[in-house]
């Protein structure tokens, strides 16, 4: 018996079919789809008017059409082609050199108006056979199906969908049906069962804010990112922001992590040597306690040590930041010019966390940042569209997880109100997602409203339990006193004297304000 004919237990299985993926031309969407649109698939882009369906499908068309394998764009009783071309050419992805060759518009309205779906199918078959396209778009498919009334009509539409689908797949075409559908139709409309994928676009309105969302309802053959993803339409067209943006690149923290100096030597000592690399630290305190100053010193110290940084600021303007830093001797402008610092000023009122995160991640990549400051969480929340505010904690969790997972050390600030009865960390109860908490607060001592600093929590190691007094001077935040033993209940802000009053001069001149 020949050796080759002997059965072997370890016979290799023949390879599975490779499903190529078509790029969508929409930044961020290919990642959400798990790589792109499966080749030769039969897809539906649905949603209510104004969600961006036509813009999305145009981006797909311009991204894929070539002279040899063009895109055939069939228009049916929807938006007149001349208007569609008029508006779509305003987007930067619109490449007029492709129109007519790589992207051909064919109007099927006359065939559709004759109420004969066979005529429509015949026209599609003729055009596809003549052009050998890679992609076919039918916009609006809903207009074709709408004419079906009664059981007989429904059967006719189903048969039409079946024949169109069968023909186009056999012709090695990836198809996109575009239509205005409402959410409730998903369950009852057989079209939704027949298609390979459903990209669902919607608009969420809350108060005065409108946010567009995209959901991959269904996608045969590959895993996509579940959930609602924010999309934005700008001059560049559609851009998608995955709700898991950044998480996919999250790395495991190294076992041995170095400590990063805050730029405030005594605070470093209180922190056991500094903030652990890859930690998320929260600086909480009322207005005027120097949270932004401390955050600026943290970034400034990093720059001094050759660690690039990113500051995402939501309240103060960058000019103010830079000016104040200058007064402390921190040359942020020079670092910006050298490309080691980016200051992101983010305060539009309809941001999504995903957009913010993408902006921060992009800046981190650009400068190779090791340190990130978010100043402040309150401003961040205000910059979000109202519909995102409800999920702020969850969004923050994802964002901080993504950034610290990438080895970035984050210092966030949050404003809290001193109520002189308890020690509050933040309004958001975000302490669960921070590794370290530094609390600043006002304390009334000897007829003055002074400032104290205390390290509340350090997940990665021991820290000082001391409540220390600090001032904000020409060098920024400077911790000035050892812990006080002549007062109790300092943490309430209204301490009781327990020891003898120390002799001291009146403060003259007053403590200068930072930056003056």
């Amino acid at each position, binding site marked *: 018996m020949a050796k080759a004919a002997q059965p072997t237990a370890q016979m290799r299985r023949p390879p599975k079919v490779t499903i190529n993926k078509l790029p969508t031309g929409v930044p961020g969407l290919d990642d959400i789809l798990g790589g792109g649109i499966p080749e030769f698939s039969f897809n539906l882009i649905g949603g209510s008017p104004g969600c961006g369906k036509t813009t999305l499908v145009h981006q797909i068309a311009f991204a894929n059409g070539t002279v040899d394998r063009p895109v055939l764009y069939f228009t049916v009783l929807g938006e007149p082609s001349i208007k569609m071309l008029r508006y779509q*050419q305003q987007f930067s992805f619109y490449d007029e050199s492709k129109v007519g060759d790589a992207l051909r518009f064919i109007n099927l*309205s*006359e065939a559709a108006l004759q109420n004969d779906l066979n005529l429509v199918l015949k026209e599609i078959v003729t055009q596809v056979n003549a052009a050998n396209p890679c992609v076919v778009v039918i916009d609006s498919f809903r207009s074709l199906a709408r004419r079906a009334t009664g059981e007989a009509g429904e059967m006719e539409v189903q048969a039409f969908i079946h024949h169109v689908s069968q023909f186009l797949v056999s012709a090695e075409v990836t198809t996109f049906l575009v239509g205005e559908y409402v959410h409730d139709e998903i369950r009852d409309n057989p079209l939704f069962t027949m298609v390979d994928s459903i990209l669902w676009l919607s608009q969420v309105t809350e108060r005065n804010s409108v946010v567009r969302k995209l959901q991959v309802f269904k996608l045969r053959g590959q895993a996509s990112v579940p959930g609602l993803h924010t999309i934005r339409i700008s001059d560049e067209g559609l851009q998608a922001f995955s709700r898991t943006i950044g998480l996919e690149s999250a790395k495991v923290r190294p076992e041995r992590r170095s400590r990063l100096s805050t730029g405030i030597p005594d605070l470093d000592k209180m922190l056991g040597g500094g903030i652990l690399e890859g930690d998320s630290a929260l600086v909480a305190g009322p207005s005027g306690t120097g949270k932004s100053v401390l955050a600026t010193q943290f970034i400034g110290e990093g720059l001094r040590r050759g660690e690039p940084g990113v500051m995402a600021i939501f309240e103060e303007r960058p000019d103010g930041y830079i000016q104040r830093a200058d007064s402390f001797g921190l040359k942020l402008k020079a670092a910006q010019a050298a490309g080691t610092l980016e200051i992101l000023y983010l305060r539009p009122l309809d941001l999504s966390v995903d957009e913010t995160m993408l902006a921060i991640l992009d800046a981190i990549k650009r400068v190779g940042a090791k340190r990130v400051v978010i100043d402040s969480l309150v401003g961040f929340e205000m910059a979000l569209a109202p519909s995102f505010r409800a999920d702020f904690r969850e969004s923050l969790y994802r964002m901080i997880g993504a950034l610290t997972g990438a080895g970035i050390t984050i210092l966030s600030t949050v404003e809290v109100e001193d109520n002189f009865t308890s020690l509050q960390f933040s309004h958001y109860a975000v302490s669960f997602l921070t590794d370290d908490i530094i609390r600043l607060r006002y304390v009334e001592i000897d007829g003055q409203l002074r400032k104290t600093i205390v390290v509340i929590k350090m997940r990665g190691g021991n820290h000082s339990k001391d409540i220390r007094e600090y001032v904000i001077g020409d060098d920024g935040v400077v911790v000035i006193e050892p812990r006080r033993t002549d007062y109790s209940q300092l943490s309430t802000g209204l301490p009781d004297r327990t020891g003898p009053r120390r002799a001291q001069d009146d403060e003259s001149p007053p403590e200068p304000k930072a930056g003056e």
Partner: protein
Amino acid sequence: MRTLAKRLKAFDTRTRTSGAVDDVALFGTIDTLRSHLSMLMGQGGFQALLARALVLASAEIPWLNAVRVGADGDLEGLAVAQTTSDANLSEGEVLLLAQLLSLLVAFIGIALTLRVINQIWPQLAFSAADFDTTASHEEAN
């Protein structure tokens, strides 16, 4: 836009082999555009655009008032207009074509209009410079 229309008409007339004197042959350049643009915007879309161009052109050339745009976008009544008046058909076609092109420019811009024209008549190397900078349907009046 009239210069462009004249050049298109001159070229299209030279290349047309048919000697038939029917409505289509009379306004052949517009008919060439019709078959191409109907694919893009549908017969209805082309019919609406040509009807608007005809209204604008009729204001300058009264005999065009006797011409109608059919449902499929063809021009009806040209032969009648020719026999019942001293109509200058060539002038009428140039003006109607100029109005049609101006409307196209107004809606889809010079770049795309130019692309459409170059696809229909690739032998004619038109460029954006061939469109008047004041290209608008008013200009043709």
